[in-house]
């Protein structure tokens, strides 16, 4: 199936967009465009809002999960590195303590024995550089190693006192006499003679560095030890040289492995893990630091975000397209239906106007033709008398015929006057009117008739009904017509009720209800048309209700009719309390 571009555009963009701006009363909306926009907007908003909110929250959750995962991984890695490092130090301290206890101070005092111990330690554990025995007076009495350190006095060094106090000692990394980064570990123990001695060994840091290396597999990862005073202990890739101040601050103390995300001093986003090292329950001077750049995570998250945005944009476009096409389709249908309906209404109005005109002409013709027929016959008769009868003396009869002609002419005149009065502008004479008095006066014309025909009449005026400003003459004419009609519709035993109410502000409502014969449904629409009458008797011209209708319109009021055959008719007249200055179109009603 191939669609032309025009069809596609019309499916999306409504047809009425460029329609003429003429406003017809039969249209469902005064202007379709804002309604169409409103519908598209509301539907789109209600569909897109949840979608967007969901995408945002979902992205937030994913990001949190990923970050948490990342921190946990770093923490685990740091924890493992800490355990390995602590184990390394502990193992060497234990070896030293074992040697001190089992070899004994006597044997350790001999240089050859000491050399054997060192070679055994190197062979079995590794990492040892030298070993020495320090006696009670802090003098190194025995030593084995690459340097000649026998007789060195450590009395002025902190480690000796600490070792004596705590039993073990682990130093920070330092260069010391040999200008080679190393760690001193020492254990103190009592000799059989009760004196105190310490076994002191130096550890090469390269073994420690080798232990840490696997915990920083990636190029950008960094794992190293720093001292509690903030000095770099083992080589760091990014945070300072060995035995120099670290670029990182000393993290707050914690007895477990910690991790956090942040930005390092180089401005690189990283996940950091750290742990204060302890060995056999006692503190060491080291803090293990593990730093992993977040590059991968950030790339992953940005891809995730891009994906989400793409999905949201694509689905939004699709939703908007579907909504627009649907709305346009519905609105186009409605618009077309309205136009068809409008065309039908216009032609119906035209038809009914013509029909009304036709009925008016028929009515006028009928009403005028009867007196014309009389004139025709009378004039014909006069001519007959004058021409056919030889003898004169028809004076009386001639006068009678001329009277008939004059009477008929008057009847025609009354009809044309009625027609003109019905159409012509009438000057209103406004003054305050008490409807109760006015209606009462009109009813008084029918009092005798009501008594005679056994019709009950009641006038019910609410107390709060105000006087209205109106034309009393016209009002009288209106109620004479309505009440007159009611009397013609009623039979013996029927009743006429007139109710005056002030239900709406600034408006007075008068209901004229009779229990007479009622108006058939098919005539209800036509009762206000001129010359429309169902009365068989030749009473009136059929202009009564049409004139009443126009009078009420001129007074700024409205008239409605409700009726049921056999039950009666109610004419409801609503009049303004004060007559406004509105213009009422002239002419024939209907």
């Amino acid at each position, binding site marked *: 199936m191939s669609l032309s571009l025009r069809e596609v555009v019309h499916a999306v963009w409504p047809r009425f967009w460029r329609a003429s701006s003429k406003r017809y009363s039969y249209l469902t909306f005064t202007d379709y465009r804002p309604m169409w926009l409103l519908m598209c907007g509301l539907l789109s908003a209600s569909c897109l809002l949840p979608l967007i909110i969901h995408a945002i929250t979902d992205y937030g959750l994913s990001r949190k999960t990923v970050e948490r995962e990342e921190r946990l991984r770093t923490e685990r890695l740091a924890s493992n590195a800490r355990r390995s490092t602590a184990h390394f130090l502990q193992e060497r301290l234990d070896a030293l303590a074992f040697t001190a206890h089992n070899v004994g101070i006597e044997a350790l005092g001999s240089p050859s024995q000491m050399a054997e111990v060192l070679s055994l330690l190197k062979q079995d554990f590794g990492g040892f550089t030298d070993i020495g025995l320090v006696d009670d007076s802090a003098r190194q009495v025995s030593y084995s190693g690459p340097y000649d350190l026998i007789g060195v006095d450590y009395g002025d060094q902190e480690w000796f006192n600490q070792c004596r106090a705590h039993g073990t000692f682990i130093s920070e990394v330092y260069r010391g006499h040999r200008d080679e980064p190393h760690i001193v570990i020492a254990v103190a123990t009592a000799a059989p003679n009760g004196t105190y001695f310490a076994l002191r060994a130096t550890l090469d840091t390269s073994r420690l560095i080798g232990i840490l290396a696997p915990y920083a597999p990636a190029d950008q990862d960094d794992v190293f030890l720093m001292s509690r005073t903030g000095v770099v202990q083992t080589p760091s890739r990014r945070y300072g040289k060995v035995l120099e101040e670290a670029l990182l601050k000393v993290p707050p103390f914690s007895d477990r492995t910690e991790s956090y995300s942040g930005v390092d001093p180089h401005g690189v986003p990283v996940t950091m893990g750290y742990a204060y090292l302890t060995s056999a329950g006692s503190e060491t001077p080291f803090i293990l630091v593990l730093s992993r750049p977040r590059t991968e995570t950030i790339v992953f998250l940005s891809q995730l975000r891009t994906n989400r945005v793409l999905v949201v944009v694509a689905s939004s476009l699709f939703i908007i397209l579907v909504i627009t096409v649907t709305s346009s389709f519905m609105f186009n249908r409605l618009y077309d239906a309205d136009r068809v309906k409008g065309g039908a209404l216009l032609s119906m109005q035209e038809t009914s106007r013509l029909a009304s005109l036709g009925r008016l002409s*028929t009515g006028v*013709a*009928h*009403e005028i*033709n*009867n007196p*014309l*027929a*009389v*004139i*025709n*016959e*009378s004039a*014909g*008769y006069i001519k*007959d008398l004058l021409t*056919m009868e030889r003898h004169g003396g028809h004076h009386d009869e001639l006068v009678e*015929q001329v009277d*008939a002609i004059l*009477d*008929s002419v008057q009847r025609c005149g009354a009809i044309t006057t009625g027609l003109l009065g019905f159409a012509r502008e009438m000057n209103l004479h406004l003054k305050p009117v008490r409807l109760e008095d006015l209606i009462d006066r009109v009813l008084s014309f029918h009092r005798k008739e009501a008594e005679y025909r056994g019709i009950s009449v009641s006038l019910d005026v609410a107390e709060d009904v105000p006087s209205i400003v109106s034309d009393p003459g016209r009002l009288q004419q209106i109620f004479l017509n309505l009440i007159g009609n009611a009397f013609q519709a009623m039979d013996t035993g029927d009743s006429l009720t007139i109710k005056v109410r002030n239900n709406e502000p600034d408006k007075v409502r008068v209901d004229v209800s009779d229990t007479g014969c009622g108006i058939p449904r098919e005539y209800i629409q036509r009762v206000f048309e001129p010359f429309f009458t169902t009365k*068989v*008797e*030749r009473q009136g011209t059929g202009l009564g209700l049409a004139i009443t209708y126009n009078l009420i319109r001129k007074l700024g009021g409205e008239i409605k009719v409700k009726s049921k055959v056999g039950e009666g008719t109610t004419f409801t007249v609503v009049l303004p309390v004060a007559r406004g200055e509105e213009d009422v179109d002239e002419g024939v009603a209907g």
Partner: protein
Amino acid sequence: MMFVMTGESGDPTILIIDDERTFADTLAKRLSMRGIDCAVAYDAYAGLALVAERSFTGLVLDLRLPDLDGCEVLRRIMRLHPGLPVVILTGHGTEDDERECMKNGARAFLNKPVDLARLVQLLAQNESGDP
């Protein structure tokens, strides 16, 4: 209500039913001056009573009568005297009225005011055509 006028030459032969009294009376006078005797009724029931009572050679009938529709009067008369020539004479009859009346056996359907000569002609034809 009814009024019967007997013409100079004996029994009335034509009945005029029309509630426009002046018109009916004058028409009756003019017809009688032309040798056609007339009776006049001003409403439907009076007219029907006369039709039942006497025999007429023709009928002039208005459609709008105070007590009964002219078409109904026509139907009833046709039931009593099928073939009686009836001329409908009305103020302004619609085409529907005309169709209805012609269907019910009216001989002619005329609008007022009528040309007397034509009416006389029609009634004369009716007289001659009366079985």
